Each structure stands twice: as C-alpha cells, then as structure tokens.
C-alpha cells in the first residue's frame, strides 16, 4: 500500500533498451563531450575551493593552478573571515548564525501549513475545493517582486483603511526582526508547498482513509497516524527545497532582514563583500565556501528526495 506514494524514477524495463542505444551512441565523441562538460562544471568550484586555502599574497598574485608548482596552504583566510571582528574582515560567523536562525523556522512553518492545506484539498469534500486549489496553484508563478513593496509597508506601517488603523505596524527591533523574515518566506513558499504535497497526498489510496473514518478516527488522527508516515518522503523533498531556497536567497533577505550583522544572512554579506571588497579574494573565496558547504552537505545527504521533488514539478524562483 505504500508503493503508490513513491514514484520510481526509472522504469527498469526500459534499461535493456537504453543500454543498446547507449552502445551506438558511446562513440569517442560522446565520451569527449561528457568529459568536457563535467570538467567545465567542476573546475570553477574547485578553483575557488583551492584558492580559499592559499595565502593572501599568493591568491592575489598568481592563479590557483600555480598551487601545483608551489603548494602552500593556510587556514588564515577562514579564521579572519569567520572570526575577525573588524568590519572589513567579514564577521562571517555572525552572519552564519543569522542564516541558521532565518532558515530553520522558515522551513518548519511552510511544511506544516502546506501539509494541513494539502490534506484538506486532497481528502475533504467541500464546495469550491477545486477553485481554491487552482488559485493556490496559479499563485506559484506570481513573481515575488509583486509582493515586496506592499508586504514591507505592511510590516513597517501596518494596515490603514480609510484613515483607520486596522492593524498596527509590527515595529520589530533587534532579534525580533527575524519574525518578519520567517513570515515572508512562509508566505512565498506556500503555493509550491501545497502543490507538491497535494500531488503526493492525492495519490494515497482512498479506501485507506475511508476505512479509518468508518472506524471513527478524527481527521487529526488520520493525518497523524496514516497520512503523515506515508507522505514523509514528500515532506522531505519539499523541506530540502525550502531549505536550499531560503539559505541561498538574497532578495527576500535584503528587503526584510536588512544588511547588518544583527539579522542579515550570509548571502547578503557576501554580496556586500563582492561589491565593496571585490578584489579581496582571500576573504571572498573563504566566505563563499563557508556559505556553500552547509547546503552542499544537506544536498548530498538528501539528494534522492531533492530529485524526487524536482521530478514532481518543484521549481521556484
């Protein structure tokens, strides 16, 4: 009964056939193309990675490939970019913590909200269900840009209707400012989340849920005991999507988190450094690598779920 949820990526029956196609296509040219593309796709990252460990004067004067002639490595760049306290050093540790504080709730809330909504849209029968679903689905392509200015004024000025204050301004200061970043990310994540989770949930066998209802289970119980265990892979794939999106986001952070070490994430700091200290390569390379390493680790350990999400139609911009 669980197999209906997991959609196999490849049908094994086609393997034998494609193997034969492969034989005809695997000429010397095909291998050459594969190698060239693979090199083009890895060399730039490798160059950055290697450079981040080279001493400052070397990074600035010689190319990273000269490392192989004169190997010298150091951790100084990482020390200074992470823990240096002068404002020019990067202070990346502070921004790293901000990235974590922003990302964790910004993943948890949308996953929960989308799960509840997707359950209702898949398994409850009520009037207007299809229209609500299509509405949420269509919101997927509303560009964030459409929402930024009004949402920012919603936070900073509240809501006024005909001169009456309907909702006061949030006036968030200090660490409380993270709340508006969480809020924004949660809103923007919902269309994709509901769409993805609905795709998976509506595939569950209806007899299962009917049987539970006949036994007198409440929707709370059905959701918790039956649906949730079955859609865990889907939650994982939406979760990892949202994690990568929030961690790597620049636009939402610039507008709702500001640019100071108090609340801005690493991407904002890196963009600042690229602008004002664009030639301080010892800090840029190390800083960029710090910001890359965490999503890369998450990504590699959960690649299976990520691919499944992609194939189910998940892409966000």
């Amino acid at each position, binding site marked *: 009964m669980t197999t209906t949820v997991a959609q196999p990526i490849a049908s094994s*029956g086609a*393997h034998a056939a494609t193997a034969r196609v492969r034989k005809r296509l695997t000429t010397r040219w095909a291998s050459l193309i594969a190698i060239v593309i693979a090199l083009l*796709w890895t060399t730039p990252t490798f160059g950055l990675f290697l450079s981040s460990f080279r001493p400052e004067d070397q990074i600035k004067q010689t190319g990273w490939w000269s490392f192989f002639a004169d190997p010298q490595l150091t951790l100084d760049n990482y020390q200074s970019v992470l823990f240096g306290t002068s404002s020019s050093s990067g*202070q990346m540790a502070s921004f790293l913590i901000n990235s974590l504080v922003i990302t964790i709730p910004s993943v948890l809330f949308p996953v929960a909200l989308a799960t*509840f909504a997707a359950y209702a849209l898949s398994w*409850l029968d009520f009037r207007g269900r299809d229209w609500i679903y299509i509405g949420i689905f269509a919101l997927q*392509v509303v560009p964030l840009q459409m929402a930024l200015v009004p949402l920012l004024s919603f936070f900073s000025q509240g809501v006024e209707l005909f001169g009456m204050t309907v909702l006061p301004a949030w006036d968030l200061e200090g660490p409380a400012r993270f709340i508006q970043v969480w809020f924004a990310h949660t809103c923007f994540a919902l269309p994709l989340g509901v769409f993805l989770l609905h795709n998976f949930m509506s595939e569950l066998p209806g007899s299962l849920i009917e049987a539970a209802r006949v036994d007198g289970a409440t929707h709370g119980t059905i959701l918790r005991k039956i649906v949730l265990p079955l859609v865990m892979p889907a939650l994982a794939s939406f979760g990892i999507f949202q994690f990568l999106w929030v961690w790597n986001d620049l636009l939402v952070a610039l507008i709702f988190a500001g640019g100071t070490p108090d609340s801005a994430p690493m991407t904002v700091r890196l963009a600042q450094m690229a602008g004002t200290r664009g030639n301080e*390569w010892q800090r840029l390379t190390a800083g*960029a690598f710090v910001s890359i390493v965490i999503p890369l680790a998450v990504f590699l350990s959960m690649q299976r779920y990520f691919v499944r999400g992609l194939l189910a139609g998940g892409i966000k911009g």
Partner: protein
Amino acid sequence: MDLNFDFAAEQPKLVQLLIGVVAFLAFVGLMLLLLDRAPMRQRARLHAFILLAPALILLGIGLVVPGIRTTILSFMSGDSSSFVGLDNYAWMFTQPEALTVLRNTLIWVLLVPLLVTAIGLVYAVVVDNTRFESLAKSLVFLPMAISFVGAGIIWRFVYAYRPEEADQIGLLNQIVVLFGGTPQQWLLDPPINTFFLVIVMVWIQAGFATVVLSAAIKGIPSEIVEAARLDGATPIQMFFRVTIPAIRPAVIVVLVTQSIATLKLFDIVRTMTGGQFDTSVIANEMYNQAFRYGETGKGAALAVFLFVLVIPIVVYQVRTLRQRREA
C-alpha cells in the same frame, strides 16, 4: 588581526530561534487539537476551514493583497502620492535605460532555457547507462545547491582580470593568454558582458535539465527503441527521431520552468555587476527603483510587467492541469 569574536553577543538570536521553534510546535499542537475536537458528524466544511485557514490567510497577506496593491502602485507617482496614469509604463517602454533592461531580459530569457535544455539533453544522453552515470550526473547537479551569490563569486573569480604584464589569476584570462591573446575585462563591455552572466545561470541550472531529461529518457518504452534499431537508425537519427519526440513533455517542462526562473533572475546580476555596465534585468531594476531610488511607481510597473510576462505560462499550466484531471 583581531579574532576576539564575541559569542555572547549572538545569544539573543539563538533565543529568538528557540521562540520560533516553540511557536511552531504550539501551532501544530493547536491545529491537531482543533481537528480532534471539531465534531465529526458535521459536514467537512468546518474541518476544511480549520485546515485551510492559516495557509489562505498567509497567502492573502503575503501574495494576493500585495499583488493587487502593487498593481495600483504602478499607476502612482514615485512616492505613491498622486495618480499618474500610464506614465511609469511609458517610461519603461521609451527611456533608453529602461529599454536596455528590457533588451537584456529578452537576451536572458531566450538564451538560458535553450542552452540549459540543450546542454542538459546532450549530457543526459551521453552519460546514459555508462559506468559513471550517477557520479557524472552529480557533478553537473552540484551547482544547484550553491547559492546564486556563491556562484556569482565563483564565476567572478573565473573572469578576474589582471593587466597584461602581471600574472593572471582568473582562469578564463589565463586560457586567453596561453593562446597568445590579451586579457579582457569580461564584465565591462556591453552587450557582450550579459552573455558572460548568462553562462553563470546556465552553469547553475544545467543539472536540473540533466536530471529531469535523464529520467524521461529512461522512461522511453523499449519497443520504440527496439523498432528504430531494427530499422537501422544511426545514433544521430535515433536522437532526433526517437529520443526527442518521446521526451517532448519533459523538454517542455524544462523550458517552461527555466523561462520563469530566468525572468525573475536577480542575484547573479546583483552580485557580479550590480546591474552596472548595461547589464541590469527587470528584477534587478525593480529592486533598484523601488528600494534604492525610492521610485515605487516605476518599480511596481516593472513588477507588473514581469507578472504579465508569466501569465501565458500560468494559463498553459492550468489548462494542462485540468486536462489531466478530466482524463
């Protein structure tokens, strides 16, 4: 170098994180409690309301109402005080600086989906069922995990420029010098600099195309491949006459998603050139106008135009969705 990083100063942030997580648990608990308590006999409407209300409220506050307000703002002056009719749109389609932005966006949206699809398709075909397939796909896929900002820095390093007499530190200029050329400042000269930015986006997104198209290729029914093979199709014929027609839906998915992602592109331009040297695109210009120059009206008009550009794609998607439901 002063390394006295003050960890104690970071504590309030972690407290805030804790508050966030506790709020999350409380929310989930409350929802489940409400669902358990709501009388089961009643029609599904009450339960549906409980389950959908939080998401719909947030969508309303975060997307629907702001979308409408932005549309209204696009007909207002820069400080949103007076109605200016279509002035902001007239600006967008007549002023040289705005036209450059539109031209660049057009270049992006034409090139990125095509290049991403072409490279992804070719790569998926050449590595298909080889011994290194999963490793090969992972290598191209990895940039998907890297932020656009990170990728921007990686590629700025590739494009880095040093005067002719000095050692080059950027890979591209080093290669140019190796072949006897003179080093270039790749990101300074319009319109060619936009192409160097496009490469970064293609580099990030090609893995997406590879994975989606590779899955589609593996799903081609064996009978079709077999029949073509018996008819003596060459590898090239096989590619154009069998593979491509069979995976057409997946190709369209890649083209559509890439077009949307490219239209909204912001980070790469902002990190690599800041939109200078005539490289700005709609999303970047929208940010500049609305949040840096205080020209809310122009920013809003750009956002609305972005939305109008993606509407045909929504209509197309909703139509396929309904067809699938009816089928």
